[in-house]
């Protein structure tokens, strides 16, 4: 008691929270705030990793939006298309997969959950072992063999090197591996919905399973849905590995599978224009922020 009354005691009491937060604060600023801040600062410079950065004002941003025809003609539309299909499609897919799995008994559910979840963990390896074999460009590729046998095509198609096929294949592969953390969260959410709600719902006149989902399941797992949506947005926007892994090159053929992350890689680690790459990353950061706000807005507004 007496300690609290002394001035020193009051000081410690008031500021001990600072001490408690210090380890976290230190790590957070070391790994998040400083790198992000550095990227923002670098985005105003010309930096080729050898010479010291050279301040050039906003010209990186001006060039990005007016001069970079690859960014405007391919990267941005591709990213948007990819985000719409994979983000929304993958989100809906993981919800329905989770809902379907929730109907099963425990043991098959656990096994199937692991199976569904595994592609998102082992992405790179699975991509090269499964999808590259299926879409291989020679006669022995699985899809080519099948189509040749059915007389649909005359020559093997270079699936992964063609500008018109790469994007649909990327979307397919990404949908296949979209059952990630969001899926797990939704699944656990569905499993934790109080069963009495459903009974009450049926007494109040719910007619079928679809209404059950709309009126009970989704409102009950709103936090998990929000989490899943944010994860989907962030993941699709920062995803860049699929196209490069499938086609084996960055830039992807005809820029068909070029996403923002590939563009950053291209400028940062192939051309060593770190300043420009930072500017693109900052734009990506702003995009993700805006999209997360939009997603949050959608989920919050509906419970007013």
């Amino acid at each position, binding site marked *: 008691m007496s300690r609290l009354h002394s001035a020193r005691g009051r000081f410690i009491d008031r500021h001990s929270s600072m001490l408690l937060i210090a380890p976290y604060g230190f790590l957070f600023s070391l790994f998040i705030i400083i790198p992000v801040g550095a990227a923002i600062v670098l985005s105003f410079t010309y930096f080729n990793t050898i010479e010291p950065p050279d301040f050039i*004002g*906003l010209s990186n941003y001006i060039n990005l939006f*007016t001069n970079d025809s690859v960014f405007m003609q391919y990267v*941005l539309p591709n990213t*948007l298309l990819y985000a719409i299909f994979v983000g929304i499609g993958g989100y809906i897919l993981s919800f329905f997969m989770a809902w379907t799995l929730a109907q099963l008994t425990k043991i098959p559910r656990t096994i199937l959950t692991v199976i569904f979840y595994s592609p998102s963990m082992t992405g790179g390896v699975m991509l090269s072992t499964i999808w590259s074999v299926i879409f291989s460009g020679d006669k022995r590729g699985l899809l080519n063999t099948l189509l040749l046998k059915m007389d649909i095509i005359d020559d093997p198609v270079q699936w992964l090197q063609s500008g018109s096929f790469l994007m649909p294949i990327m979307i397919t592969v990404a949908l296949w591996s979209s059952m990630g953390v969001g899926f797990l969260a939704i699944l656990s959410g569905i499993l934790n919905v109080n069963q009495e709600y459903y009974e009450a719902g049926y007494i109040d006149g719910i007619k079928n399973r679809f209404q059950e989902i709309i009126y009970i399941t989704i409102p009950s797992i709103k936090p998990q849905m929000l989490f899943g949506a944010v994860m989907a947005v962030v993941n699709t926007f920062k995803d860049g590995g699929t196209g490069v892994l499938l086609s084996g090159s960055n830039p992807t053929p005809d820029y068909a599978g070029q996403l923002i992350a590939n563009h950053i890689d291209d400028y940062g680690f192939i051309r060593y224009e770190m300043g420009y790459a930072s500017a693109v990353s900052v734009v990506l950061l702003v995009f993700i922020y805006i999209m997360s706000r939009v997603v949050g807005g959608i989920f919050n507004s509906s419970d007013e």
Partner: protein
Amino acid sequence: MRKFRKIIAAAAVFCILACAACVTASASQGTTYTYTISNNGEWIRTQEAYVPSMVYFKDAGLSKPNDIFIYENFIYIADTGNRRIVVFDRDGGGYSYIENESFMSPMGLFVSDTRIYIADSGAEAVYITDRSGKLLQTITKPENSPLMSSMSIFKPLNVAVSREGNIFVVGEGSYDGLMQFSPDGEFQGYFAANKRNLTMLERIQEMLYTREQKEQLLTRKPSAIQNIDISSRDLIYSVTQSDEVKYSWVESISKTSNALKMHNMAGTNILSTSEFMDDEWNFVDVASGPYNNVYAVTYTGLIYEYDGNGDLVFSFGGRAVSNDRYGLFTYASAIDLDENSFIYVLDKERALVQVFVPTDFAVATHKAIYDLESGNYEDAEENWLQVLQLNGMSRIAHIGYGKSLMRQQRYSEALDHFKIAGDVGNYSESFWEIRQAAINRVMPFAVAAFFVLLVLVMVRQLVFKTRRKKVYSSYGLTGIESRGFKRLRIDIGYAFTILKHPADANYYLKKGTRGSVISATFLLLTAFAVYIADLLCRSFIFNVNNNSDLTPLMLTLLFFIVFFLFVIGNYMVSTINDGEGSLKNIYIMLCHSLMPYIIITPAVVILTYFLTVNEGFIISFLWTAGIIWSGALIFTGVMQVHNYSFRQSVKNIFLTLFFMVLALVVVAMLYLVWNKVTEFAGEIISEVSYRVKK
């Protein structure tokens, strides 16, 4: 634009002077009109580009000659009927002959510094002689070549030889492409085969038939190449006659065939990137010109000249029907150029050669094309200006002049000409340069203004610390007491609610606490204005419509007919399907659902003035988003207004669309028989009046 007016004025003056000059000088007129492609992609007449001048071989006793080749002063003719090659010395005027008893029917020939190559389809051989006609080597059908099947025929029609001595042979019915031989006559393989596209019927057959059935079908061969020429850069030009088009009475198909091709080393066509080329399906021969230009002739005697990008420069000539006028052909079979770009065309029926001489206009055009391609932009500008003064409507002249200005960094002047020519790509490129300069000029001020504003806002927040209270809209829970104009203002303001709360908004619109027919009509008229602005006021780069084709009446009718058909159709369909909404409800709902379109499209139209083709996806994305949003609002609106479930609404909308189609069909049918209906009515009336009088 003022500059352009000057050009037109200058052109007009020039034309008058030229006409006056023509009268006195009585210059030789072309037999046929010369055409080019106008600013809006249609054929227009232009000045004479080539006039017929001399006639060779008139009484030389040629019999069904098939090929002409000009080398230095000599004209070589493959005199097929007489089984010989005729050589004419243009300076000396004497004939000489290359004859050999093994010649059966020499169809095509090619002359190099030391050799003459003769393609003989009757003897199934290509003969190589020296310039005096001594036979050096004979290429016959390659035996035992793994590259050529023993079944295939070897009937050489024409031959072309590259600078390295590689021999390219056109074979009759050789659908595998050109046959390529090494300088010592060894078969190297096929080159540049044409593609055969499947027709719809064939695609279906391909899908459904069994292997046995497919074997009974005719084999589907691509068309064989008809003739070739080799350019000074050793690129091969080929012309193909297409069978499919021959039977087609739809004229537009003949445009898609790309009958004229320029092949790179891999045999790929690199002449025209677009699928549409102004060509003919019955080209028989091709000749390459000195400025990357190329000439092709049809057997009906039409001569087309293209520039290096496959764009049509001139088209002239034609068929002589039952008369022997110069400049026309009974059956043209070959074309070649001499060093002055005079065109020599061989007439197979009449067994003579006609020469076309380029006029000053054609020479000026060629010079302009040449200067532009070789990078003398100042000369090119002058030359194109000269061409423009002669023909202010010529598309290639406007593009050429614009390009020469653009390369000299006179972007804003270039813009006018690209706009006239309808060249979006180059217009966008010039506009980009202008915009870039403007951005660099304005950017510092913009950034400064941004920071000043930021500071002001922060200061304001510090000074007035009170946070703005969030005002919750009652979404129409309370009735509105006011009437008249004030009510209208509130109703229009309420229209924005539908963007975020479509269900609530539609509920109160239906109840009548918010919105009215007047405010809905106001929205509808705004939407109409926006629709018109979207069609007519977009910048040149993004305006896909040809404004001169759109009549205001048609646009108005289109918009309102579709809108009111939907309203009426929806009402009719819903009344027999337990829908709750009245006609007024549906009208108000539909007008309010147009809000996203009303808001987004003007932004799109304004953006088109700042964006280039490069950023074009932003325009299409935003525009589509607006349409989809409006569509979604209409759907939820139908659900609310009629108190429908999801499935009922889908059904309702499909039925409404079906009604709209049906109504249009009925109107169209009524329109078709309208004469009969009035006639019928008139007859009844006259009949009745006749009886009554009686």
